[in-house]
């Protein structure tokens, strides 16, 4: 297994280095810079030039890139031009919020997928199939900025039973009951498309598994269908769902930008959005590179989990 993991590390490193160059270069291509935000609309061109010089933005781009990369290697993520604080602190604060939200969304999606997917296969009813397919399509097609606004309008404005946004004032751990209420709407909004996607994968995988000869043998031996689905087909179908879930983590991180804006959830998404709109280069660079790193890591972990669940992959891959 270790050799299997090691064989995937070099490509992961190459992806990270290429991503760092692209992120740094593309940000510089976007018109405007942080000096413009700091100077404000009433600043003179001279004041703008002075700020740009103070931030080191008048130095060659390659020099700025190497300086940034050097700082990263020494563990210094830098300081935000606009917020003023350490980026490490900013990222840690936002990361906790995003991790909580993303975890809740993914857990919700997995639970929905398992219940709906297994339920749909067990019932073998055409109208249940149609219902599940329709629901999946809606969940996938409904943009988060629509579902989010609808959820807020129904549960926070029309039936004011849940907060319209924000995080618990006293933190996540102090009042779990309050925390859950703040989490419900953004987690549903972020988790719905993921649920739709992995449910579809799970249903298809289960049906594929149910057509396998071992299922026919089991049925011939009189094993109940429910038992076959839950204890034989489901474990065999899970790797496919897991792969789909791994890919969906990227969507979750991307979707978090919008969901965090709709629900005023101060996570990494809103930090990226604010950073880009105000051209806070150091913050955006670190966050985008972090997103790439998380995505690469999740893919790596997915491969490992896949290999652990399915020996054929492990054997074919390295042993």
């Amino acid at each position, binding site marked *: 297994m270790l050799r299997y993991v090691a064989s995937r590390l070099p490509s992961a490193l190459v992806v990270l280095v290429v991503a760092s160059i692209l992120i740094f270069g593309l940000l510089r291509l976007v*018109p*405007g*810079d942080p000096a*413009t*935000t*700091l*100077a*404000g*609309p*009433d600043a*003179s061109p001279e004041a*703008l030039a*002075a700020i740009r010089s103070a931030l080191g933005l008048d130095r060659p781009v390659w020099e700025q890139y190497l300086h940034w990369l050097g700082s990263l290697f020494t563990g210094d993520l830098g300081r*935000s031009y*606009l*917020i*003023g*604080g350490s980026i490490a602190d900013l990222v840690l*604060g936002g990361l906790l919020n995003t991790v909580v939200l993303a975890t809740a969304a993914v857990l919700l999606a997995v639970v929905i997928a398992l*219940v709906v997917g297994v*339920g749909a296969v*067990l*019932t*073998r*009813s055409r109208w249940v199939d149609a219902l599940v397919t329709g629901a999946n399509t809606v969940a996938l097609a409904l943009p988060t900025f629509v579902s989010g*606004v609808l959820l*807020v309008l129904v549960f*926070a*404005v029309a039936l*004011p039973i*849940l*907060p*319209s*946004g*924000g*995080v618990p*004032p006293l933190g996540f751990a102090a*009042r779990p*009951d*309050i925390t859950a*209420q*703040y989490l*419900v709407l953004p987690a549903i909004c972020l988790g719905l498309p993921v649920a739709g996607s992995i449910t579809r994968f799970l249903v298809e995988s289960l049906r594929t598994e149910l057509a396998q000869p071992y299922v026919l043998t089991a*049925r011939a031996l*009189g*094993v*109940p*269908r*429910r038992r*076959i689905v839950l204890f034989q087909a489901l474990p065999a179908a899970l790797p496919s769902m897991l792969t789909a879930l791994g890919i969906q983590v990227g969507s979750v991180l991307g979707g978090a930008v919008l969901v965090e804006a*709709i*629900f*005023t959830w*101060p996570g990494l998404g*809103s*930090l990226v*959005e*604010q950073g880009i*709109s*105000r051209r806070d280069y150091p913050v955006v660079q670190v966050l985008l590179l972090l997103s790439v790193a998380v995505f690469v890591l999740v893919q790596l972990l997915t491969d490992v989990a896949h290999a652990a669940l399915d020996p054929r992959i492990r054997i074919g891959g390295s042993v």
Partner: protein
Amino acid sequence: MTRSRLRTATPVDRRTFVRALGLGTLVAGLAAGGLTGCASAVGEQKAGAAGGTAVRGGSLSLAGRTDLVPGNFFTTSSDGVTTVVGLVYDSLIRYPNDKVEPRPRLATAWTLAPDGLSLSLDLRPDVTFHGRNGAAGRPFTSKDVEFSLRTYADPRWSAQLRSTAAAITGFDTSDPHRITLSFAHPLSNLYDLLDTVPIVDSESLDALGRGESFVGTGPFRFESWTPNSRLTFVRNDHYWIPDRPYLDKVDFTVVTDPQAALSGLRSGQYDVVGGLAYRDIQTIGGTSGFHTVTLDGAELQTYVGANVNAPGLSDPRVRQAIAYAVDRQRIVDEVLRGSGYVVNLPWPKYSPAYDETRNSTFTRDLAKAKALLAEVGPLPEIPYNFQANDPVHQATAQIVQANLAEAGLTVTLAPLESVQFTKQLIGAQFPGIWTTYHSWAQYTPANLTVSAYPFNAQKNASNYVSPAYQKAADDAWKLPAANAPGARAAYDALNDQLLEGLFLIEIGVVLRQWAAADRAQGVGWTKRCEVDLTGAYRAV
């Protein structure tokens, strides 16, 4: 038998599935009920109902679109900054909202020398800075005034009135409760500076620059800042106004999406919300339990700027044609929903420079606009820039485009992202015309030409250079006071130059608005849109 066992091997039929689904829904409902039943986050947010009696205690929750940027502390350019400055700091004097006449604040009295070259201010002796853990901090003295004015003049902070602060050449602080300022030349906008500069603590300025600490003498102490999320403030128990403020705590939340802010206000999560579209403010203002706060005195102006070096726009007749073609009243009625009024010159009605006659120079007259354009001959298509994320500018640009098309001038809408727009504004790089807001006309008239870059007589976004305009701006700035003898003539000359040059074609004065729940009472503001909650309370 086998057959029978196989039949029992398909136990989940439609009925069972529906039952399971129903059970699941019930469990989810019970869970939701449990969540919302044992302790309601919504209930905790809404504590305190509408009413009318001022009471001590409680808190208010504010929401704004833009977070604090410590490097912009002296530029009042974001909601976070205006909230911190308004709650944590005091100024030496304060203009009432509808006048440009100084009223005592940290300075109790002042005397301006007859030649306008020095000003003595008596300072309150009973003021202290915020201390640690709610204790009173060190006393406020004349040294703090000197430090604050010198800091404001530091180019590092890009403050709008920096040139006025830099014209202060001497500080006599021998008496801790009296300061005498000397000037390089008379400054007619001197009181604007004293109204604007927050008195900052010299011992924590570095921490202020890093966004770690904000220490002032204001009604609330800064408690914490979570970037991109929230600012919290607590009552200053040692405030120099007895029994004020009423509130114990104030929260400010950054809500970048106006619809999310509106939902938060409706659901009781926020008490006062800024940055909403005028249409939404009008709607919620007419809803039971909510009201609108119109920020009289903190006016902005919306205008069409012209790069006088751009093809077609170098001819003043084209700029006059634009001024005649624009339907200002329609913009005020439809875009601002009546929250403003039409102007030709930048001044609000209470300004000493306001002139009803000159302000009516360009009323909508399509025939005149067409005649002027016919005199000029064929013109190229003119690009029209505005900030894409601002619904007011977006709608204004569309109306202006249609107006100009009626007059025979074709303009192409070219929306820009906010930072890019600001970069082009500062760099005077617009290829044609543009629309945005400007400020500072709500102060002493001379302030505009030395503080707002689009009007700067020396260098501006329109590339407009005119010795006559420079002289008029300089004459107005060097008046000993805003209402000194000869001021009217100076303002008339300045107005004539603005109407003649027409590099900025004014559309209207914009009255900013906040939407508030009725439980939030007594909410005030300064001319820079800083929130003032000294007399605010949560009605019970």
